[in-house]
């Protein structure tokens, strides 16, 4: 266990850096990159609840991001002629996205480990295919060309227009979701999730209603994606199906795993790396994803538990003394960490 004081001062330092961020950024473009880091960190925190806390491998998380973005686009653009104010649309989208989390989560409750992974992946693909095809016979999603002309968020009459303003909105939301994640972790639900992650059968024997707890994980994880979706739609002022490809799910998962699953600062660090690395490699334009892929491999090989994880804390199966892999029956199928 990391010393709490150390973590607290780290968090305060990071908070200070985050607030001063736009002053340190060389130009507006980098402020945009930083805003995107905050946006994706919010998403990664949502996935962290499902994967890191409850141990449910979700490979279709981007579906909730897409659902959130499109819901906001429906509610606040001329597509359907609705122009709900941001503060009204945001809660509606959060609630509806959480409901979609329950809807998608419900059929997967019986599934274990990798079956859950492939079914969530299937839901992610289905969501993408529906977004891209539901422009006929009735135009709902606008098809491949998406929905454009989405309202910018207005907070108490003040309309956001610059990257810096969006950045502060996103940082604020990130702070709140971080706080919520930290509080959830040590709440009754949080302990239930971690018990399910470690051993589902034992959790049930201890009187945890695993069905309810898993659905809560899906719903809360999805609601974070709903927030991210509203932000993306209102920031881009448009949404396209290609914003929600499978690779995006994988990117978000990489953020969660790189930093160290279940570790909140680790998740933020992971989001920073995954968003910023390809940007920093922009000078090598053509090679950046090659290098990015290589870095993912190297990081996993040299720090498989994530950059900011502390061994022993999350009950990693320890290798045997002779260096051979741990017994399979020790690594339960439904367990990811």
């Amino acid at each position, binding site marked *: 266990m990391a010393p709490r004081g150390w973590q607290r001062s780290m968090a305060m330092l990071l908070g200070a850096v985050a607030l001063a961020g736009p002053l340190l950024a060389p130009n507006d473009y980098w402020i945009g990159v930083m805003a995107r880091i905050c946006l994706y960190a919010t998403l990664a925190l949502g996935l962290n609840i499902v*994967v890191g806390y409850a141990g449910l*491998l979700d490979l279709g998380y981007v579906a909730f991001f897409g659902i959130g973005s499109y819901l906001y686009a429906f509610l606040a653009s001329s597509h359907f002629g609705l122009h709900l104010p941001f503060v009204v649309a945001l809660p509606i989208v959060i609630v509806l996205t959480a409901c979609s989390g329950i809807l998608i989560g419900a*059929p*997967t409750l*019986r*599934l*274990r480990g*990798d*079956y859950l*992974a*492939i*079914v969530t*992946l*299937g*839901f992610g*693909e*289905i969501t993408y*295919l*529906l977004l*891209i*095809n539901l422009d006929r016979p009735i135009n709902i999603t606008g098809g491949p060309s998406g929905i454009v002309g989405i309202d910018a968020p207005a907070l108490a009459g003040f309309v956001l227009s610059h990257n810096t303003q969006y950045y502060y909105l996103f940082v604020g939301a990130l702070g709140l979701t971080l706080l919520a994640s930290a509080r959830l972790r040590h709440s009754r639900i949080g302990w239930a999730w971690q018990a399910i992650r470690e051993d589902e*059968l034992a959790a049930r024997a201890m009187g945890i209603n695993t069905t309810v707890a898993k659905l809560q994980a899906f719903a809360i994880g999805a609601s974070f994606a709903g927030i991210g979706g509203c932000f993306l739609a209102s920031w881009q002022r448009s949404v396209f199906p290609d914003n929600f490809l*499978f690779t995006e799910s*994988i990117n978000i*998962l*990489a953020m969660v*795993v*790189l930093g160290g699953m279940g570790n909140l600062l680790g998740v933020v660090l992971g989001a920073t790396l995954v968003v910023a690395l390809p940007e920093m490699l922009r000078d090598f334009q*053509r*090679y950046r*994803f*090659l290098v*990015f*892929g*290589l*870095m*993912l*491999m190297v990081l*996993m*090989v040299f720090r*498989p*538990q994530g950059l900011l994880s502390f061994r022993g804390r999350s009950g*990693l*199966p*320890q*290798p*045997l003394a002779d*260096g*051979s*892999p*741990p*017994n*399979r*029956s020790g*690594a*339960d*199928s439904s*367990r*990811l*960490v």
Partner: protein
Amino acid sequence: MDNILAILPQQLVFGLALGTVYGLIALGYTMVYGILFMINFAHGEIFMVGAYVGWWALTLLLQAQPGGLHAAWALPLMLLPAMLFTGVLGMGLERFAYRPLYLRGATRLGPLISAVGASFFLQNLVMLTQGARMKVYMTGVLFPRGWRIQVFGASISALVIVMFVVAGLMMWGLHLLVQRTTLGRSIRAVAEDREMAAIMGVNVRRVIAATFFLGSALGGAGGVLVGLYYTQIDFFMGYSAGLKAFTAAVLGGIGNIRGAMLGGLILGLVESLAVTFMNPAYKDVVAFVILILVLVFRPTGLLGETVAEQEKV
């Protein structure tokens, strides 16, 4: 409706041909999963590399023999290098991207992310070295358009028959290898209980490497066949094919070799039927909906898991 019934046999043939290839690629996923409990996300890219090596072989053969090629010897000359290359590539991935992780008993997500990294890496490597534009397979040289037979109103081209036969032979060969040989017995033993197998004197690392070689080689062969069938390949083709093949593996029951073949056939048929009876845009939706339904009602896939996790609750 008459119209649809008339093209139905044709669509079924396409579905079967595609299904055997899905099955061939699915074998790679299922074997690696059966033995390591790991989704090898880079397998789709290995399939893609196989398609490229096959394309190179065909191009070289055409340069050497501009007069004409005969499929009987040209096809093996394409398949062999493709399978060797992808097999060695798969072993290389195992050695450098996965082995350090499973030896340390890392989290189950670690190898997954490493595989995702490998997938990005291979895709971009091929794009940078081979160009982003698609390559064209000169299928017409090997299999002239006239080579086809009529069965029940379906016109079956020689290529489709060859795909069916090649894929079928390979699956049969794999089946024999796994069931009858010493290596096959070691593979089954490691899948059953890795530690116990090690105690009994099985060289676990070598068995895992061999499994990667076999699965990747089959995926590479699938790449050549798909290249011949669609006549166009690009660096991104591994993504959707890999996804489909993985779906097929899970559909049949992951870790189960026969299940992978069955899952591949079902997926191929469902897709071709969806194209016939519905809006083609929704064919992938149909495939995934069926997958989800099967798993919800039969969470271990159609044929169940033979090697995996039965002893667990």
